[in-house]
């Protein structure tokens, strides 16, 4: 049995998970229309690959790009492209972004699947297939999986961690997936092992999910994988964070500014493993995901496998609609790291693991201000990244962003432990997020101004060079002219050619007259 380690701090939270686990894994019906944001991953932008009015088949690429950190978007069902326009998307800003809108025709007709002969494929070819399927990390970070795998392959991986921890309250989509689709998760882990060739593989699941652990153990027995162990880990938030999970399982800390694979550890979420299995075995790209619909204002909470692009109000209808109030306060993600949605017309994207439908009164109304810090340092006690939240808070509030960086602001995983325990109810994470966006914006502006300086200096140089060349040319010309003049002065005085011609004409005329 593996000896487990502890990470610093963390919280024991009320899970609120039971009520969305009652109904198993449900299949969501197709809505009338699907709204697919062009970009559903972290990284570069996609370009649309379809035109308005075009008929698309399920699984057809509708947006992609050749950039490295990119994941294609596929049509989740057959239908006609209605528009490529700005629509509200699931983003903390509540802003709009370019979406491809598909009028669903209901046939659900797919492109002919053409599964490859997996046995004969090399790891690099498997990565290529995963890339084509548009797979991203489904744990919430939505980082494209194929570049992560390529990098991991290059770095060399010692330990593969399959993350089925799901530590955040309210979210149960991974739990349900492991209970009802454990075989796909296990086979997907097998493909990851083939690609990365790790020495050991841990499948980590929080011990508040005994059914999922049992189902995964059964699937692993049926489909044994080499050097693979299912590890139940204690239920402490945020044990599902990549760095925290690495520490629990291996005792190693991911160094500042590095990622897990820099120390030979590769983490992947269970949902991603299932998606990899589907992509490789059935040639089915990432067109659906399991979403938890829960909260205290929804009639029948549960988990649905929904096509990407399904508007949230469609899922709310499937879940029996709102329970108490006519509309609810919608949050995407869990109660710790989730963010409020602008409305129920926002579509499900690759990142949507959970939609919380809450009563207005449950969400504590922000008074618009907070009390002052009393320096109790509870935040530092619970911080899983071992930061000094108080110091970060003072500097972030004073907009001393350089100082926040010295206190390792960018190691903050925004888990929300500090804000939860703060007796003054200071929205600490919001301060950190604001500071991070300011620093990123400054960095972007600095990058642009550095480019402008280079271009300006290059132009100055070019103009100077041109001026020098012009001057040089003029000087040469002048010299040549002077030489010519001087040459003409030194030689025999030549008769004027015009005069000579005139003389010749005169002579000829004279001759003619004489005749």
């Amino acid at each position, binding site marked *: 049995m593996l000896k487990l380690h502890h990470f610093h701090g963390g919280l024991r939270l009320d899970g609120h998970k039971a009520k969305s686990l009652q109904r198993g894994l449900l299949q969501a019906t197709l809505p009338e229309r699907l709204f697919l944001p062009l970009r559903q991953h972290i990284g570069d932008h996609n370009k649309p690959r379809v035109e308005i009015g075009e008929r698309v088949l399920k699984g057809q690429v509708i947006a992609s790009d050749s950039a490295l950190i990119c994941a294609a978007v596929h049509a989740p069902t057959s239908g006609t492209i209605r528009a490529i326009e700005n629509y509200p998307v699931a983003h903390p*800003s509540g802003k709009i972004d370019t979406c491809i809108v598909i009028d669903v025709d209901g046939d659900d007709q797919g492109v002919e699947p053409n599964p490859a002969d997996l046995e004969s494929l090399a790891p690099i070819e498997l990565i290529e297939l995963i890339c084509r399927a548009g797979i991203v990390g489904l744990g919430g970070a939505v980082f494209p999986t194929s570049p992560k795998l390529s990098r991991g392959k290059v770095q060399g991986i010692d330990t593969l961690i399959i993350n089925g921890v799901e530590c955040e309250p309210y979210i149960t989509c991974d739990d349900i997936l492991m209970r009802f689709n454990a075989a796909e998760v296990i086979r997907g882990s097998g493909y990851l092992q083939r690609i990365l060739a790790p020495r050991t593989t841990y499948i980590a699941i929080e011990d508040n999910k005994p059914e999922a652990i049992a189902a995964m153990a059964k699937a692993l027995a049926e489909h044994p994988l080499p050097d693979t162990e299912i590890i139940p880990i204690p239920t402490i938030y945020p044990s599902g964070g990549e760095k925290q999970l690495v520490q629990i399982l291996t005792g190693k800390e991911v160094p500042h500014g590095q990622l897990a694979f820099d120390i030979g550890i590769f983490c992947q979420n269970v949902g991603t493993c299932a998606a990899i299995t589907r992509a490789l075995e059935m040639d089915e790209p990432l067109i659906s995901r399991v979403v938890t619909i829960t909260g205290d204002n929804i009639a029948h909470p549960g988990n649905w496998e929904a096509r990407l692009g399904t508007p949230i109000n469609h899922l709310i209808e499937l879940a029996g609609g709102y329970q108490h109030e006519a509309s609810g306060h919608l949050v995407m993600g869990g109660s710790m790291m989730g963010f409020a949605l602008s409305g129920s017309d926002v579509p499900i994207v690759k990142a949507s693991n959970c939609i919380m439908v809450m009563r207005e009164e449950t969400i504590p109304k922000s008074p618009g*201000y907070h009390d002052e810090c009393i320096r109790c340092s509870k935040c530092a006690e619970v911080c899983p990244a071992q930061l000094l939240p108080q110091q970060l808070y003072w500097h972030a*509030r004073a907009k001393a962003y350089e100082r926040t960086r010295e206190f390792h602001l960018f190691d903050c995983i925004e888990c929300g432990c500090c804000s939860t325990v703060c007796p003054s109810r200071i929205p600490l994470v919001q301060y950190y997020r*604001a500071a991070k966006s300011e620093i990123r914006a*400054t960095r972007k502006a600095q990058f642009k101004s*550095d480019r402008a*300086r280079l*271009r300006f200096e290059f132009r100055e140089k070019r103009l100077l060079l041109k001026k020098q060349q012009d001057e040089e040319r003029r000087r040469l010309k002048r010299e040549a002219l002077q030489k010519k003049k001087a040459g003409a002065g030194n030689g025999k005085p030549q008769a004027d050619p015009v005069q000579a011609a005139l003389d010749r004409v005169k002579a000829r005329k004279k001759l003619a007259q004489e005749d």
Partner: protein
Amino acid sequence: MFVAILTISLMAGVFGLVLGYAAIRFKVEGNPIVDQIDALLPQTQCGQCTYAGCRPYAEAIANGEAPINQCPPGGQATIVALSNLLDTEVLDLNAELGEHLEIPLLAVIDEQICIGCTLCIQACPVDAILGAAKQMHTVIADECTGCKLCLPPCPVDCIDMVPTEQSIDDWKWPAPLDPLELVQDA
């Protein structure tokens, strides 16, 4: 006594030679403070500071000829950064020179009207306009600094300054309301 004087003079002479050599060998080219100031300026090269570009303004600041509040594109953030660097007082932006825009501008050429005179190309300080004589010109949006220097030379007035498009990536998390500010407002 005599030995002591001789020793000290000898040492002074040796150190003097070393220092003199070091001053020549490790001579710093240019004025490093100008580089540091220049690095903080936004490099729009717009000339709103009344100097012919960011570097001339940086030189003027370094020589004490210009105050640090003459850069509208940089705004208050640049003034604060400059005051930190130079350890001087934070000033308010000189409003006579222009106002600071939160969202930078982008020059857009109306290609229907453009006659291809190349005057704007010659005016652009960062070579962000592409075109040739009697050919349509266009602005390379990523390189445009929004300095407006292409506007005056255009004989047909076909260049517009529009705010750059703000995508979801440019969105910033708003900071929480500061309780102290609320108290001050009340």
